[in-house]
């Protein structure tokens, strides 16, 4: 492990520090705190930018320290092209989001708290992408889920927010557990706990019998996080969060964590049939479903959210497709998407903020009022639609390069890509054109251009999309190629540029555009057709979530009613049934039953008589028709037991037993006969049989095991010792007493404690009444606690 690098640690910690100081800063500076707070992510951005030359030269930066040495967990990072570009996106877009938030939530009472959450998320996300150790990855992964939960539920007064927050937590939480299991399985397969080492163990991983299990578990994490069908539903709902969150977490960064994971896994897990089937199938389905659902929406944010879903599907599909260019296409698209989608979300926020609505059908003609936003929106739409001269064009070309092969599977996937891309094209231009061009529509608020803080972000991202495409050779050298190399596990070079190559990909791009334009013209009827279809289906995973949660609550209620019915006699019955099973089952299974005992020939008649009395007493207790008889019979068996002690050499025991028994019977009779209780112990016959079965089974168990134990030769060395030294050292003639006060005096100490506590507990039971008032004490019976004195 490379040496501890202080600056990187600081960079990782900065967002968390920012989270701590944000509320205070906001309190002092109001929304202008944005200018100060933006320095934090900007510093992180610069810090990571410094790594660019080294990483683009093909080396990876590692560092860290032992975190939990006892469990072989390190806090270590591994910064290669993939991690670095992600880190730059997170900190770079993060800086813009900090600006944007200042404008968007200007004057909001909880702006400081909001910043804290955003920074917490930023720190978590940064940690996620540079983690080398599995557990560190998992910790940060879950942290992003938790911060996302807090951010989605930011507007906690509304039920929809709370529902969406919980939904995100549950879905991504499920994925988190899947991820954890997957990582632990990989740990078991390979013995390594670091991603950087795993990358080189691809052959071992793929050959393992647990490969498929590990793969499915890890993908469970990736697919839930990256909103792949059928786990996509939480992402559009997450739009309940304020727009900066949508732009940052739910389009540019967090939802890409799953894609990040898939890309990270590619060298070790890729290149198998399972990989190249599961990923394209899920990715492709997500792409189509997402883009169809996007068409259906009229809310700007929801339109964007569903295209995010489909874009994520596209990335997963490309990563898993398995051809040379496909992975590169996934990478390029990811970068392009972060820029144009981030920009789009912020613009949607601007429109909402300025015009007072984000319903696309209620917007129009904002071009003159919001010129910068309009320009940025057009740039984003061009990039999203894959038109030159924007970076989206490059990624689109690369996608078709990657997909186009002359076999049915490739052709099928190409068609999927065309449809998906075409539909996203439609949505992108709908958002860029509809609100801005055409007739001015009266909006709830009178719109003007958004303040500087709010357009600086989208404008930067839109420009970025342009510059990255124009200077593509440099961009590829420093950004795309290192990232693609990291994803494919070997050095790769990306060469695609704005200069169109006449060929299949360009043709496919044209096809996409033509298809898109056709759909665009018919977008209203397409929307109603999709809406009608969805109504016809009537069920979706989103509804399923509600059914799942309420179903679980109902199920748990039913189970708990059975498992915890609230009746003491049921509790007792189950408990003693367990006792019976515990005694009898092992004796039978493990062959520990006693041998048949012989009749004790030495038993003397008076002994037998006493034992008989005990039996009679016991029988009478059960048979007694009324309480007093039962209590008296109770005394009979108790005195019989006391006599038995006397007969078998235990006079102390016998006396104590007499005393205790007398006291018990007297108190029981005194206390209980004063109450108007049910006279007899009436039980229905069925219950009688059941109770008797349990009782007899327990009794038989205790008896049999006692027989079995007493068949084993006894070791009396403890008592031999006590007898030998009782008098000579401890100076007591009565060995039993000496044991109590000396050899085992500590038991007696505990026993005294018990008596002491009992006294006080009884006192408080008797004296304290519900709703006790100080004056009531004297009115109560000063009943003394009953204690036994030995």
């Amino acid at each position, binding site marked *: 492990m490379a040496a501890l690098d202080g600056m990187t640690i600081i960079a990782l910690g900065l967002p968390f520090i920012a989270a701590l100081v944000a509320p205070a800063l906001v309190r002092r500076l109001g929304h202008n705190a944005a200018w100060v707070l933006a320095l934090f992510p900007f510093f992180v951005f610069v810090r990571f930018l410094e790594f660019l030359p080294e990483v683009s030269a093909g080396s990876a930066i590692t560092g860290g320290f032992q975190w939990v040495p006892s469990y072989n967990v390190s806090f270590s990072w591994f910064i290669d092209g993939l991690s670095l570009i992600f880190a730059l996106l997170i900190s770079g877009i993060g800086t813009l989001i900090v600006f944007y938030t200042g404008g968007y939530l200007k004057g909001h009472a909880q702006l400081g708290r909001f910043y804290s959450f955003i920074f917490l998320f930023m720190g978590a996300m940064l940690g996620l992408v540079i983690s080398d150790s599995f557990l560190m990855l998992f910790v940060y992964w879950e942290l992003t889920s938790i911060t996302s939960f807090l951010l989605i539920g930011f507007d906690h007064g509304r*039920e929809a927010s709370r529902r969406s927050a919980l939904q995100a937590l549950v879905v991504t939480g499920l994925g988190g557990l899947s991820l954890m299991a997957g990582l632990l399985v990989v740990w078991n397969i390979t013995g390594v706990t670091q991603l950087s080492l795993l990358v080189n163990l691809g052959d071992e991983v793929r050959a393992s019998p647990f490969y498929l299990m590990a793969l499915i578990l890890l993908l469970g994490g990736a697919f839930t996080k990256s909103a792949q069908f059928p786990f996509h539903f939480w992402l559009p709902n997450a739009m309940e969060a304020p727009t900066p969150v949508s732009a940052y977490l739910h389009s540019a960064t967090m939802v890409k964590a799953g894609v990040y994971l898939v890309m990270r896994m590619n060298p070790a897990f890729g290149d198998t049939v399972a990989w190249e089937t599961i990923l394209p199938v899920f990715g492709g389905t997500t792409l189509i479903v997402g883009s169809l659902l996007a068409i259906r929406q009229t809310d700007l944010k929801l339109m964007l959210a569903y295209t995010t879903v489909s874009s994520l599907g596209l990335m997963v599909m490309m990563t898993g497709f398995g051809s040379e260019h496909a992975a590169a296409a996934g990478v390029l698209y990811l970068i392009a998407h972060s820029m144009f989608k981030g920009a789009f979300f912020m613009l949607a926020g601007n429109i909402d903020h300025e015009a007072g609505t984000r319903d696309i059908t209620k917007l129009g003609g904002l071009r003159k009022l919001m010129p910068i936003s309009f320009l940025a929106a057009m740039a984003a739409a061009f990039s999203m639609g894959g038109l030159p001269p924007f970076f989206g064009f490059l990624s689109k070309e690369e996608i078709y390069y990657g997909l186009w092969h002359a076999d049915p599977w490739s052709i099928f996937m190409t068609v999927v890509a065309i449809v998906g891309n075409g539909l996203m094209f439609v949505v992108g231009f709908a958002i860029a054109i509809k609100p801005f061009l055409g007739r001015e529509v009266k909006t709830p608020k009178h719109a003007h251009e958004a303040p500087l803080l709010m357009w600086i972000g989208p404008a930067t991202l839109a420009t970025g999309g342009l510059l990255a495409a124009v200077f593509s050779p440099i961009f590829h050298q420093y950004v795309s190629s290192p990232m693609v190399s990291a994803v494919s596990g070997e050095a790769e070079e990306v060469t695609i540029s704005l200069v169109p190559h006449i060929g299949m990909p360009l043709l496919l791009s044209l096809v996409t555009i033509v298809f898109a334009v056709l759909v665009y013209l018919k977008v209203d009827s397409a929307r109603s057709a999709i809406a009608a279809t969805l109504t016809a289906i009537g069920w979706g995973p989103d509804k399923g979530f509600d059914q799942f949660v309420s179903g679980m609550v109902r199920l748990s209620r039913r189970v708990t009613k059975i498992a915890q019915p*609230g009746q003491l006699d049921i509790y007792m019955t189950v408990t003693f049934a367990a006792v019976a099973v515990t005694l009898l089952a092992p004796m039978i299974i493990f062959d520990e039953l006693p041998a048949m005992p012989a009749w004790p020939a030495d038993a003397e008649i008076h002994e037998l008589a006493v034992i008989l009395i005990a039996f009679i007493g016991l029988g009478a*207790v059960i048979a007694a028709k009324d309480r007093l008889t039962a209590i008296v019979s109770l005394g009979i068996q*108790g005195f019989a037991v006391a006599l038995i002690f006397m007969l078998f050499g*235990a006079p102390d025991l016998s006396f104590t037993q007499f005393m205790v028994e007398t006291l018990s019977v007297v108190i*029981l009779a005194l206390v209980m006969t004063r109450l108007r209780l049910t006279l007899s112990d009436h039980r229905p016959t069925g219950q009688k049989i059941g109770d008797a079965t349990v009782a007899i089974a327990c009794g038989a168990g205790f008896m049999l095991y006692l027989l079995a134990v007493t068949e084993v030769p006894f070791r009396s060395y403890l008592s031999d010792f006590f*007898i030998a030294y009782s*008098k000579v050292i401890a100076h007591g003639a009565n060995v039993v007493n000496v044991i109590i006060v000396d050899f085992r005096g500590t038991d007696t100490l505990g026993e005294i404690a018990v008596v002491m506590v009992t006294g006080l507990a009884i006192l408080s039971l008797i004296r304290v009444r519900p709703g006790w008032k100080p004056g009531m004490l004297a009115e109560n019976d000063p009943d003394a606690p009953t204690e036994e004195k030995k």
Partner: protein
Amino acid sequence: MEALFSVLVGALFAVSIYLFLSKHIIRVLMGVAILGNAVNLLIFTNGRLLREVPPVIAADEYTLQQAAANPLPQALILTAIVISFSFFAFLLVLGYRAFQELETDDTDEMRVAEPADEEAPPLGY
């Protein structure tokens, strides 16, 4: 002799447990009393049995001159008796107070802590 005692112990347990399974607190309390006896006799038997000779050293001896009953179980039982009687006393008062507060000695009707008609948690969010 151990065999005979084992049967008696078994019977004590069976009766005690039968009483424990009653719905009436007073029967359960009797069960508690018998349970104590059952356990004590069980420990006693586990220490094996010997008749009549208590483990008391004669005044002019330094140690026991003849085989005597095993003293250790007796000591353990003495501890256990006191503890179980303390418990019995507490439970008795508790049962008495339960009757006063809950106005029943039928455990099926003691449903204050776990009401039968408990409200379900909200199904919304």
